[in-house]
């Protein structure tokens, strides 16, 4: 089959690789219909993960059709159209049973036993280094999906592929950011980063009754999308003093909840800084009202120096983090998509055949041509 493989720093290529096969009784094989780039791919693309090997298949978020079913799979049949959650999760461990699938104990292949001191979560993901317990990704003709009854979700007929694709990760990540931040009716919420996850966080905050949702970015197209589709107020940090603006718009209190969704990425040459907005985290900590919540999203935050810890203690802030989404909200989000309450297809600003994967990644990495997400069709 064809697959988009990482080759070297800033180099990906579509290659012929062996088809995946059922490896466990709870696996299914999915024929991919759509897959999308995501912010978590960027540090990988740049070659910042030492565990990534040339030939590893990228693609954390995808949707497709079940074509092969393991003997212990109960919920899926061949021919089902499914969206696959970006966290591999067993469904049976303590974390999964609390709905915290991104913390699953049993979904990374044998890594935790090798290194008990490892500081990461044990949960496996698609399109993540095999050497880090990850699984081959969705930018391919076919993908193996472990624990399919937990990880794959049937897509309602009313929801087309381009919309349902975002139920894999961006929509649940945004929803859970608002939930982790405990957004309440009447809250003022500020979101740094107007990528797909930032926009969907804004949407989730509005749905939870926030009185005001502000999105901070420097890309006008993204800010306009957040405003038009999701009801957020745009703040262009190149043109305005974000801290002063946020104070003014929140009656001098500061936002109740601040979400940092800037995509911690490669450009942080020394780790942990966003290419787009290096001071986003500090800005959020300073802006947040006393006793408010700061939620930090995204992969590869790594180390962050000169963190204003004093502000966290002085102002009694709660700091929370999340990387991969939990899966419990996926059916609810698909449902809202089916009722047109949630529209996400516009986030696929660039639709390309899989062969054009390298071009798609270049657009996505550089935010070129208004790219929010590059979506591939095999």
């Amino acid at each position: 089959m064809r697959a988009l493989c990482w080759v070297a720093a800033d180099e990906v290529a579509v290659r012929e690789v062996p088809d995946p096969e059922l490896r466990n009784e709870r696996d299914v094989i999915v024929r991919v219909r759509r897959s999308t780039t995501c912010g978590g791919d960027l540090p990988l693309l740049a070659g910042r993960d030492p565990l990534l090997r040339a030939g590893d298949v990228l693609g954390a978020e995808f949707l497709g059709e079940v074509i092969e079913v393991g003997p212990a799979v109960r919920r899926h049949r061949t021919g089902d159209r499914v969206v696959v959650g970006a966290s591999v999760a067993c469904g049976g461990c303590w974390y999964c049973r609390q709905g915290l699938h991104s913390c699953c104990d049993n979904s990374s292949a044998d890594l935790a036993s090798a290194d008990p001191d490892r500081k990461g979560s044990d949960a496996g993901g698609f399109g993540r280094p095999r050497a880090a317990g990850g699984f081959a990704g969705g930018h391919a003709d076919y993908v193996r999906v472990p624990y399919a009854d937990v990880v794959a979700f049937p897509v309602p007929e009313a929801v087309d592929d381009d919309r349902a694709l975002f139920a894999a990760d961006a929509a649940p990540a945004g929803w859970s950011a608002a939930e982790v931040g405990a957004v309440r009716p009447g809250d003022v919420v500020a979101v740094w980063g107007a990528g797909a996850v930032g926009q969907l966080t804004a949407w989730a905050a509005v749905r939870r009754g926030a009185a005001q949702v502000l999105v901070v970015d420097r890309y006008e197209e993204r800010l306009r999308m957040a405003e038009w589709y999701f009801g957020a107020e745009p703040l262009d940090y190149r043109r305005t003093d974000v801290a002063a603006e946020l104070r003014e718009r929140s009656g001098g209190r500061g936002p109740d909840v601040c979400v940092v969704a800037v995509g911690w990425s490669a450009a942080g040459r020394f780790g942990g800084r966003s290419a787009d907005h290096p001071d986003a985290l500090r800005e959020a900590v300073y802006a947040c009202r006393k006793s408010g919540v700061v939620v930090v999203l995204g992969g590869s935050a790594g180390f962050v120096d000169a963190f204003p810890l004093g502000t966290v203690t002085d102002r009694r802030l709660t700091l929370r983090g999340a990387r991969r989404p939990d899966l419990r909200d996926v059916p609810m989000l698909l449902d809202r998509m089916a009722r047109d309450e949630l529209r996400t297809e516009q986030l696929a600003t660039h639709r390309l055949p899989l062969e054009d994967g390298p071009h798609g990644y270049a657009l996505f990495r550089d935010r070129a041509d208004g790219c929010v997400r590059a979506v591939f069709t095999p």
Partner: protein
Amino acid sequence: MGRLARAGPALGSAALTGAARLLRVPGRRGRTGADGDPGAPARWQVVTVDRPPEQVLPDGRWPEPLRRLGGAVEVRVRPAPGDRGTELAARPLAGGTPPAGLAAHLVGDDPGLVVRRALRQVKQRVEAGEVLRADRSALDRRKAHG
């Protein structure tokens, strides 16, 4: 090291060496017997399995693949606090007789590894119903597909 730093300039080299030795001892004894201290017992490796003890050890018997380590490890079981299932612990037995093929793994640089792997597989079997296998590597595949 706090006390040493404060005393700094006044300390002779002999005193320094002595203090350093004293400071090192607890650190060493806290580690497993793997790092050269033959007297120290190996550290317990523990997993919490989110099921009651009777499901983790049906009929009180060690589950596979722990059973395969019989004679080489000791096992401890207790209910986890807060309704979180069962704490299952194992450690290499001093003077135990490892089954053939496992002996090398139970000494080596990290004798805990084979124990941790067995515990983790027990946990996966009980919680997930199977032991998750990694994707095949490109190399395995090339061999298999000839």
